[in-house]
């Protein structure tokens, strides 16, 4: 937008509102607000346990963002997310504590190795579709889970792997700093997903989901884009795993089971397929609401497996009444306030192109 006259006459408030329309600015503002939470906790305005719950919400949000690319945009199903998250966690622990290579090496290992394994797995399993892909991914997760239980030198088996807060730039981190690392990772993750889905890549994924034959006719190499989506999902899973370990400082094989994978799918579905903020909201609803609210209710608060009942019910309700999840609900609320004539869902990538400077 090279309209200098507009910027000159615009009031600071207008400029602020305009800047907030940019998705990347929204992500950064969101991240900045989240960074205030540890200080609230330090000031005693928030319980430490609440901060922990929110940290896990953000970690799950990262993992769910990756899965949303796979499930929402590409229309591929995976029941194996938890396996790759666990792999990321164990790799981070192994590289940080056993090999003593420090934070960055641990993070890199947790990103690269699961992605690479994801690519290999995808190369074989992405040739089958829908329910068969779900079964294949489930098998892989189960194989990983058994490996975590048996591979003692790597995972310490069922006794669990213990770790510690990482040292970053010679500085010993604590709960608060790791929380901020998680926020930074989430914001970067949101930006990357945003860039992915608004542009040629995203359109190719959309077309592939909508019709594989049409995608092929338009020159989309379907296997390549499926592999891309699959490896992105494993990348985010690995990242989530590493952050999980850095924050919790321990990892047990039983954590990385099918229920975790299903919960992450629930986050994507409840939050809204193909919505970035929706996914974060979904992670909050699925993980934090049972922890912070339901467990404190009388009578039903003591029911075993309450979170699963809750997320199961939510999935059913969302699929029946709100196929677009929380994102759709938000649109419904916002719609009356939009200017007339504007499409209910603004065309993707419309706002971004306005800032593209003709180079």
């Amino acid at each position: 937008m090279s309209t200098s006259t507009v910027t000159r006459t615009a009031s600071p408030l207008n400029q602020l509102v305009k800047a907030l329309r940019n998705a990347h600015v929204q992500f950064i503002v969101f991240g900045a607000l989240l960074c205030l939470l540890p200080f609230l906790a330090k000031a005693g305005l928030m319980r430490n346990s609440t901060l922990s719950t929110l940290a896990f919400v953000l970690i799950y949000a990262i993992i769910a963002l990756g899965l949303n690319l796979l499930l929402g945009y590409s229309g591929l199903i995976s029941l194996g997310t938890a396996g790759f998250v666990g792999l990321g966690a164990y790799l981070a622990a192994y590289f940080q504590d056993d090999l003593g290579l420090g934070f960055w090496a641990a993070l890199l290992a947790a990103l690269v190795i699961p992605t690479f394994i994801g690519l290999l797995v995808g190369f074989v399993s992405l040739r089958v579709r829908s329910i068969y892909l779900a079964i294949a991914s489930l098998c892989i997760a189960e194989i990983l889970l058994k490996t975590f239980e048996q591979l003692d030198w790597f995972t310490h088996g069922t006794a669990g792997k213990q770790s510690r807060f990482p040292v970053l730039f010679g500085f010993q981190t604590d709960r608060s700093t790791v929380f901020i690392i998680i926020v930074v990772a989430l914001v970067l993750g949101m930006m990357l997903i945003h860039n992915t889905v608004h542009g040629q890549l995203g359109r190719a994924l959309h077309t592939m989901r909508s019709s594989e034959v049409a995608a092929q006719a338009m020159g989309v190499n379907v296997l390549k884009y499926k592999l891309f989506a699959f490896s992105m999902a494993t990348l985010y899973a690995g990242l989530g795993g590493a952050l999980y370990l850095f924050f919790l400082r321990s990892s047990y094989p039983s954590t990385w089971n099918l229920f975790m994978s299903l919960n992450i799918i629930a986050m994507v579905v409840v939050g809204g397929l193909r919505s970035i903020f929706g996914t974060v909201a979904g992670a909050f609803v699925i993980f934090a609401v049972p922890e912070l609210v339901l467990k404190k209710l009388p009578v039903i608060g003591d029911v075993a497996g309450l979170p699963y009942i809750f997320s199961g019910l939510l999935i059913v309700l969302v699929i029946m009444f709100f196929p677009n999840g929380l994102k759709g609900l938000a649109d419904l609320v916002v719609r009356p306030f939009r200017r007339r004539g504007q499409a209910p869902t603004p065309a993707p990538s419309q706002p971004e192109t306005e800032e593209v400077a003709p180079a």
Partner: protein
Amino acid sequence: MSDQEVLRIDHLSISFGGLKALDDLSFGIFDREIFGLIGPNGAGKTTVFNCVTQFYRPDAGDVFLTVDQSRLSGHDRQAVDASGQARLNLVGRPVHSIIRLGLVRTFQNVEVVKELSLLDNVLVGGHVDFKATMAEQLLRLPRARREEKLYRDKAMSVLEFLGVDHLAGQLAGGQPYGVLKKLEMARTLMAEPRLIILDEPAAGLNDTETEDLSQTIRQIRDNYDCAVWLVEHDMRLVMSVCERICAISFGKFLALGTPSEIQGNKVVQEAYLGEQE
């Protein structure tokens, strides 16, 4: 129309479980020609399309496409002749590599992405034009942004050409059928093809829209300098817009000629037109 062939179908045969869907079929389409393929239901018209675009692998026969030098890459460059073109056999090539060679198709039951805007749907047709790598796009580096802007403008002009630019920002889902048909055509034009295959473009359109369509087909040929090949049930459209027509029945060649020749052809009348009256 020129006398150079853009597409040559040569002794094409395919069978599905003993049923011969195409039987030794041969014909050619000239550059900048509006060509029609007709035949009774089940004659194998769509099968011809699918064999040409490599969705099906023919059992026998070849499909030759004349391709400009500028579209070629790698090994195919060696096939270029003195006129700066190459005649490539499409059989055996991956489906997604065909559009790059200048051949693009629409679908009988419009296949557009409902969740994307019209503009984004058209941009899908420019998929192979993007040079920016995945990494460049993920990080939104200058080249990726420049290309996005460039092709966005191009897609807008294609929508304008087809008279649906006022809908560019709206989602494809929920648009009337006529708009979706135009959208599919816009998507093919985005690829600047040398040959467009329209699979039953008039299906589901009302009379006014069909008349409008024959106008559009001519405009496409004139403005985009490409050949248009349509498979169609609507006889009025085929007879009014096509310069030459090929008739097939049960996968076999019947006749090839101008609309009036085909209308007067006894064999065709028996196999197809006769049935209608």
